[in-house]
C-alpha cells in the first residue's frame, strides 16, 4: 500500500498498526473472484480523500469535485487490491469487480481480515483485506 501511495499519489505517510477512531466519510470497496476469493475496502476522512485526489490529479485540493474524489478513491482501492493479489501465489487468475463507493452498513467484516493504516494529512487511510479461507467458527458481521 505504501508503494502505491508513493509511486502514483506522491504521498508518504507513517503506517499505523491500528485503525484510529475517526469519521471515515469516504469508503470504497471491491470483491475479487479466484482461488481464494475475497474483498478489499478502504476508508478515510473527507479531508484526506481530497488530499489524495488532488495529488493524483495534479490539482489543488479546493479544485477537486466530490465526483473526482469518489473516482480516485475507487481507483486507489483497485490498485491496492490488484497489487496485493499479484503477490499471492495462486493457480487461478484473480478477477476484480468494479470498485464502488460503499454506504454505512455495507462494509463486510469477519475474522481473518487484515488491516493496514497510513496517515494521510490529518487523517488515516484504513485498508481492510480478506481472502475467504478462514476456517474459524466465528460468524461474519456487518459493521453498523
Amino acid at each position, binding site marked *: 500500500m505504501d*508503494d*502505491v501511495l*508513493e*509511486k*502514483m499519489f506522491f504521498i508518504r505517510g507513517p503506517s499505523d498498526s491500528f485503525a484510529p477512531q475517526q469519521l471515515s466519510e469516504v469508503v470504497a470497496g471491491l470483491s475479487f473472484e479466484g482461488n481464494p476469493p475475497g474483498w478489499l475496502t478502504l476508508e478515510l476522512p473527507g479531508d484526506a480523500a481530497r488530499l489524495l*485526489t488532488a495529488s*493524483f*490529479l*495534479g490539482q489543488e485540493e479546493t479544485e477537486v469535485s466530490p465526483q*473526482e474524489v469518489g*473516482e*480516485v478513491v*475507487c*481507483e486507489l482501492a*483497485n*490498485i491496492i*487490491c*490488484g*497489487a496485493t*493479489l*499479484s503477490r499471492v501465489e495462486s493457480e487461478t*487468475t*484473480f*478477477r*476484480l469487480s*468494479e470498485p464502488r463507493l460503499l454506504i454505512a452498513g455495507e462494509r463486510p467484516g469477519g475474522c481473518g481480515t487484515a488491516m493496514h493504516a497510513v496517515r494521510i494529512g490529518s487523517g488515516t487511510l484504513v485498508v481492510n483485506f480478506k481472502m475467504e479461507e478462514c476456517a474459524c467458527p466465528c460468524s461474519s458481521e456487518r459493521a453498523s
Partner: protein
Amino acid sequence: MSYRILIVDDSPAMRSFVRRVIHLSGVDVEEFREASNGARALDILREHPVDLVLTDVNMPEVDGEQFLERLAEDDRLKGIPVIVISTDATQNRISRLIKLGARGYLSKPFLPEVLRAQLEGVLETIRV
C-alpha cells in the same frame, strides 16, 4: 514529431492520470482521445488515426485482452502499437498480453518515469 494517443480505461481518474503523466513527460502530443472500454476504443480507431494506444485490461464490454485480439484481426488496425497498463503483475498475464501483441506492459503502481520510458521506447519505433 507530435503524436495522436488513445487512452483506454474505465476509470476516468486513471485516464486523467495517464494523460497528465504523458503531458509532463515532454512527449509532443497532437491529440488525446479517450475511451472507457475496448468496444468504444475500436470505434474510435476505425474513425480516427492514432499513433499509440494505452489500455487497461479489466474493463466492461470489451476488456483489454479482447481488444488486443480484435486489433490483431483487423488489417487496418493491427499495426497500431499498444501499451497495456494493469494491476495484474503476474507473469502469466504479462506473457499472454505480449503474445496478443502488446508492445509494452506496465503494472500499477508505476512511477511516471517508467511510463515515460515505455512511451519513448515505443514511439521511437514509430519514428524509425
